[in-house]
């Protein structure tokens, strides 16, 4: 009978061997020797509808297959960190710890979308409810608790708001939407900034959590008086009601692609890590219709990767106006990336090599 120490070492060795084998298998599947190159990606569910369009189009254009699993931004970051995929996708920029864990990873903004406040108020259709940042923050801080609150009424002259308790709904899992939403609230409410802050997952002052977009949508749908936030594409595809938001120009806007594109015009320079916040863009005549809850979504790749050439080509292609137009329609609502961001993205992309 071998002693325990030996057994543990043996089992550890076995486990390690198994892990290596699995990793090897993963790498093998990521680098097939067939004539048709395959790129594997995973992550954000927000970008998944875009990739569903891009994938077939790119296969047609370049003969390269693109597989994408919509596992969520966090899982996408984990997957690219572990190199089980060729690219990850995330709606929130990498945190410092995530960046260091990922090693030589770079994040490249490759699509532009938005999160929208979604509500369930009996009698109020989509776009009929108007809100501004400070009011939204107060609602989520639990300081406005009823829909007939004077602050809400003041924004909605002419609309009959019911005497109905407000239930706030948020994502219970870490999410890029939560990042954009809390980023916005931090911009418009100093109390939010100091008490809660910005992250993919925060310590909520109250409210109900739902798992992923469908979970949040389900809670809102079954709860009169509920308000939450969901990616715009999901909201449109599922015919949910969403609010007009007052931007810093003083206009109430509705998160159409031009509104989102306008928000992105606020970007003057791109910082080294490509981490950009375009929520609550300042007042400016050029983008007076800017949607204040817009967000870039990122593709994450390793700088040194065996698939460098194929990846570079694919991402370049995705950034072209033609590809960006493919995902900018009444269903998908991804706005085209502004030029300054585009050139930063291409600069970053050029660093990727085999």
């Amino acid at each position, binding site marked *: *009978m*071998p002693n*325990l120490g030996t*057994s*543990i070492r*043996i*089992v*550890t060795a076995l*486990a390690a061997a198994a892990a290596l084998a699995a990793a090897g298998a993963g790498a093998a599947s990521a680098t097939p020797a067939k004539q048709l190159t395959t790129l594997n990606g995973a992550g954000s569910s927000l970008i998944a509808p875009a990739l569903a369009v891009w994938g077939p189009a790119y296969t047609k254009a370049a003969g390269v297959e693109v597989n994408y699993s919509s*596992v*969520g*931004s*966090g*899982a996408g*970051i*984990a997957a690219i960190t572990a190199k089980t995929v060729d690219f990850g996708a995330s709606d929130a920029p990498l*945190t*410092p*710890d*995530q960046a260091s*864990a990922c090693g030589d990873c770079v994040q490249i903004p490759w699509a532009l979308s938005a999160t929208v406040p979604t509500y369930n108020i009996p009698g109020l259709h989509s776009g009929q409810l108007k809100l501004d940042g400070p009011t939204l923050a107060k609602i989520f801080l639990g300081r406005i608790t009823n829909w007939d609150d004077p602050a809400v009424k003041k924004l909605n002259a002419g609309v009959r708001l019911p005497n109905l*308790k407000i*239930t706030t*709904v*948020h994502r*219970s*899992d*870490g*999410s890029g939407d939560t990042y954009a939403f809390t980023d916005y609230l931090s911009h418009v409410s100093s109390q939010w900034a100091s008490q*809660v*802050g*910005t*992250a*993919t*997952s*925060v*310590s*909520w002052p*109250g*409210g*109900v*959590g*739902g*798992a992923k977009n469908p*979970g949040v949508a*389900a*809670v809102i749908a*079954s*709860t009169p*008086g*509920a308000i939450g936030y969901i990616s715009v594409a999901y909201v449109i595809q599922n015919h949910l009601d969403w609010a007009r938001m007052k931007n810093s120009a003083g206009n109430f806007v509705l998160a159409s692609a031009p509104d989102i594109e306008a928000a992105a015009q606020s970007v003057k320079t791109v910082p080294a890590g490509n981490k950009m916040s375009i929520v609550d863009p300042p007042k400016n005549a050029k983008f007076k219709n800017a949607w204040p809850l817009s967000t870039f979504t990122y593709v994450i790749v390793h700088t040194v990767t065996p698939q460098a050439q194929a990846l570079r080509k694919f991402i370049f292609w995705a950034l072209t106006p033609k590809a960006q137009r493919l995902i900018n329609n009444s269903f998908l609502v991804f706005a085209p990336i502004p030029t300054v961001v585009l050139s930063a993205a291409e600069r970053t992309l050029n660093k990727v090599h085999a």
Partner: protein
Amino acid sequence: MASIDTTSESARRPFEGRRVHLGDVVLQGVAGAAAAGATALVLLIAWKVVDGARPSISKFGISFVWHDVWNPVVGREAYGAASFLFGTAITSFVALLLAAPLAIGIALFLTELAPRVLRGPVTSLVETLAAIPSVVVGLWGILVLGPALRSHVEPWLHSALGWIPLFGPPSSAGASIFTAIVVLTIMILPIVSSISRELFLGVPAELKEGALALGTTRWEMVRGVVFPYARGGIAAALILGLGRAMGEAIAVTQVIGGGTTISWNLFNQGDTLASKIAAEYQGATSNLDVASLIYLGLILLVLSLGANIAAQWIVRGVARRHGVTRGGRA
């Protein structure tokens, strides 16, 4: 020839010389390796969990267990398990409390009382319940069950039993600790009832006949003979159910509504150790976040192991009290 000599030698003294039976050796080797492997695996997992939680352990120490805070925002990170521990305890215990009489009742009905034509179909129906993936149960929980409980059951419980803190004002959304409890009840029901059913079936027919022959009714027989005989096994089954309830993550994540405050009102939102880990592990944003989630996992591991050891201890204790280890199907 030497070989002939040996043959005649062993033929004369047929019982001498221990022969090595290849089958026995192989069996012994395989079984031994499997046992050692299983033990090593448990230790390895435990060690991995402790190792992964280390940054959080060294930062928060044991007070992590009773601190009620969870803030993953970079720059103001603070983590503690109290509200999740509370959520795990209250959901799994209340679910067990609801499931136990139901499951035992179903098992009893199926083994002793139901007309024979009903037994087969009802048994497979209950067992099918166990086969429903938890994510589907969770979806049903948030789409159908939660809203129904919120609109019909919670207000009624509140008006009838509102003086008990557990039945506070109804939740506004269908997601609540109460919904999680009902979902967990449904999930552990088939486990407990099918183990109980097996236990009841394992009660020797002679014992039941012995009781009935005294002129007792079926129910008296069940109470006097079937229950005592199966008691230890049922206790163990209940603890297994408790373990399942404590460990269930996906379905709970979907229906419990998330929340980091400790509230005695079952109609409020909450979180359990498992549901918190399931919800946030993939999206954890910092090393301390990851370590703290693993720390939650460590606490859950300790609880589950404790429950398992308790189950084994109960089974042994009952076997001892009966004087004989009999019918040890548990």
